[in-house]
């Protein structure tokens, strides 16, 4: 299969730093659609403004990424994602702390349309030597290192790699910063999408990106808002929100998403309290633009 989806297992023992990496990755503004399968949904901590939709075990984000709970079958969950309407550019699978990545690789072999998975094991430099000596998990932690294709050495003291005979004996590519990991992930998806996004280099761009939420007056007419949105600067990449607006004089709730030029309004059941009110706008806008947009959207007048 030429368009098989690349897959990376994020391995490592409990507390190694896998979730932090996932939170960082999901919160970035890159052009890649990454779906992350996680064990512990509750640990995923994403700015509410970035959340497009939460449907049971799936969280969809405004940057095109998604996060799903693995549930009781990795095989079936991965299969569902790959067969889904909108398959990702890259599937990232978080291993449970007890998992041996080698076994997970084999399970994922049972998913048609998925490339043979690679494994990146996250190592907590500050604790892993203690873990290696632990009578219960020493062998497991060693297996997680051995079965990895590459390692991310996390929490280095003063940036220095630990001099450890176990690590030294493993001749595997190593990364020592989240930036490097993001860059590596960017390259993994590139074959499929021709989008060689350097997720690591995105940092500068991401700083210029702004995400801000504007309260939209409830007495605004839907058609007025729609007209206003067409006047937004093109630097607004994306907007979304669940808004109460006037439709021919009556209150009506809408899910709004798209960008200024191309935006959909879908009638929706009254809002779920978890979702912030107001319109979320994302884009590299200047302060001046931002003031202009605020004036435009927060007053009912055209």
């Amino acid at each position: 299969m030429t368009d098989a989806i690349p897959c990376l297992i994020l391995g490592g023992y409990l507390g190694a730093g896998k979730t932090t990496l996932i939170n960082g990755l999901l919160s970035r503004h890159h052009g890649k659609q990454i779906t992350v399968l996680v064990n512990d949904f509750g640990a995923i901590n994403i700015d509410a403004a970035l959340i497009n939709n939460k449907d049971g075990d799936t969280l969809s984000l405004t940057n095109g990424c998604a996060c799903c709970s693995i549930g009781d079958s990795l095989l079936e969950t991965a299969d569902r994602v790959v067969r889904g309407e909108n398959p990702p550019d890259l599937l990232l699978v978080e291993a449970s702390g007890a998992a041996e990545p080698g076994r997970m690789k084999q399970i994922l072999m049972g998913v048609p349309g998925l490339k043979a998975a690679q494994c990146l094991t996250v190592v907590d430099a500050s604790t892993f030597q203690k873990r290696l000596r632990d009578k219960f998990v020493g062998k497991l932690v060693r297996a997680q290192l051995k079965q990895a294709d590459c390692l991310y050495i996390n929490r280095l003291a003063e940036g220095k790699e630990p001099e450890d005979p176990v690590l030294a004996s493993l001749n595997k590519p190593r990364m020592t910063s989240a930036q490097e990991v993001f860059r590596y992930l960017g390259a993994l998806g590139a074959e499929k999408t021709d989008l060689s996004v350097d997720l690591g280099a995105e940092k500068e761009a991401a700083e210029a990106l702004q995400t801000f939420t504007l309260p939209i007056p409830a007495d605004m007419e839907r058609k007025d808002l729609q007209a206003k949105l067409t006047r937004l600067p093109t630097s607004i990449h994306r907007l979304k929100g669940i808004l109460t607006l006037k439709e021919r004089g009556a209150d009506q709730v809408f899910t709004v998403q798209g960008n200024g030029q191309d935006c959909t309004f879908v009638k929706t059941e009254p809002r779920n309290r978890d979702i912030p009110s107001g319109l979320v706008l994302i884009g590299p806008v200047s302060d001046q633009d931002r003031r202009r947009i605020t004036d435009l959207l927060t007053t009912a007048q055209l």
Partner: protein
Amino acid sequence: MQLAALFVRLTRKPDMSDITVFTARRIHTMSASQPHAEAVAVRDGLILEAGTLDSLKPWTDRYGATVDERFKDKTIFPGFVDPHLHPSLGAVLLPSYFITAMEWSLPDRKVPATKGRDGYLQALKEGFEKEGASRDVFVTWGYHQLWHGDLTKADLNAVSKDHPIVVWHRSFHELILNDAAIAHIGVDQEVMERHPQINAEIGRFSETGAKVVMAGLKDFLFNPARFLEGLQSLLQVIHLGGHTTVADMAYGIFDFEQEWMAFNAMINRDEVPLRVLMVPKGLPEDGAKESPADAVKVIDGLADRSNDKLFFDRRVKFFTDGAIFSELMQMEEPGYIDGHEGEWLMVPELFEERVRAFWTAGYRIHVHCTGNLGHELAIDVLEKLQREHPRLDPCYTIEHFGVSTEEQVQRLKQFGGRVSANPYYVHELGEAYWVKSIGFERASQMVRLGTLMRENVPFALHSDFTMAPAEPLKNAWVAVNRLSESGKVLAPEEKIPVHQAMKAITIDAARIIGLENSIGSIRSGKKADFTVLDDDPYEVAPETIKDITVHATVFEGRVFEVIKE
């Protein structure tokens, strides 16, 4: 006489029923204060008292009684208790066709021991001719290469080219499929070819490859009609074994709600002579999605649905290491002969964190342990929790008790732990694991019940059905004799006396699940639950205890005869 009857009517509370007195050749009460009786008086589902017809007179003279002599040649025990089995696994497995290396007695069939490749293929052919056509997929369970030799797709294709045949391995971790079954499930061609644990040529799907088949068979295996059929047969299995109380020792193994609906429909009925203690798994969501406190709340919430037949008692089930039948128990040095490693079913820190939350909430904890490193973890956590938050109640039970050490038993005793053991491992796995897995010393000493007795640690026996037959007498037989599959005695020092074994399937089993005040022995005030045997285990040759047949059970005073073919 008429006057006496009138007197009875006038003095009795209007809602009281008649007294029935059951007589027997011998009643083993399992009460140390009065071990034997000849008659037992029952009213309203409760035992009035046990003794002799003469000693029961204060009751029978006053109220009259029906003397039921149908068991006069039989031996009566308290109703057998299995403190650890899995009704849901049984329900999924039982509708399959059994071809097994060991004998299995099922209500609708007596499964003979089938050994050797030729014997297996012959049994498969016969089974398919009998039942193949009536099932969309012919699933047979029990194959094991140690006893049945190598089996390939070609062998199955020779039985049928067009009808799907699935051979499910004894360990549940491997499957062999014929071409029709592979096509029926629709296994992706590319996956067939590239998967390291699928051998496309011989049609074998093992471990992670087996998951591909199980995902494809899910709709078939978990079809509600099939599940209810399986549950019905499970209830017959349980009755045939002589049980009147069992514990579901991981309720929610598939799904809390669906299991509850099926159980409630099938078990919460007057004509079912069984009550089930529900012990939920302590991780309500796979992958520990909730916080520990939320997990406790979820489990707390389940108790509201208790009824007389299916009830909760603030008990919860956890797991340390992998399955013994898959050789995935965690072993201390020197480990396995072939050098492979076992697995943790939960990260040790996570295990500790979750157990702590239930411990401090006052729950009683049951921990699945198979290897000696698994036991070490469970006992380490027990010690830690006792130091942090001491508890005097019997609140920590090791489940299965596969491979352990004497020192672990001593430490378990020190910190107030108990054991619910599966002795069947000794019989089925003892010899195979001696030769191929962990060597003689550790394999022969699996399930060291003699050590438990020496250290005075309370223990019960369980079947973990479907891991072992749900036949308490067979388990008692293993515990007493420690005979391996080929008849060798494994670690005679770990044998236990008949009386200890019979206690371990009655009063001590009740104690392990906290029901000793209402069941487990025949004494005044307990439920009138009895198991009626055709012979007396104390009198027969110990090596024939497993052959004693269950004649009937009595559940809360009502007789339920075992229908024999």
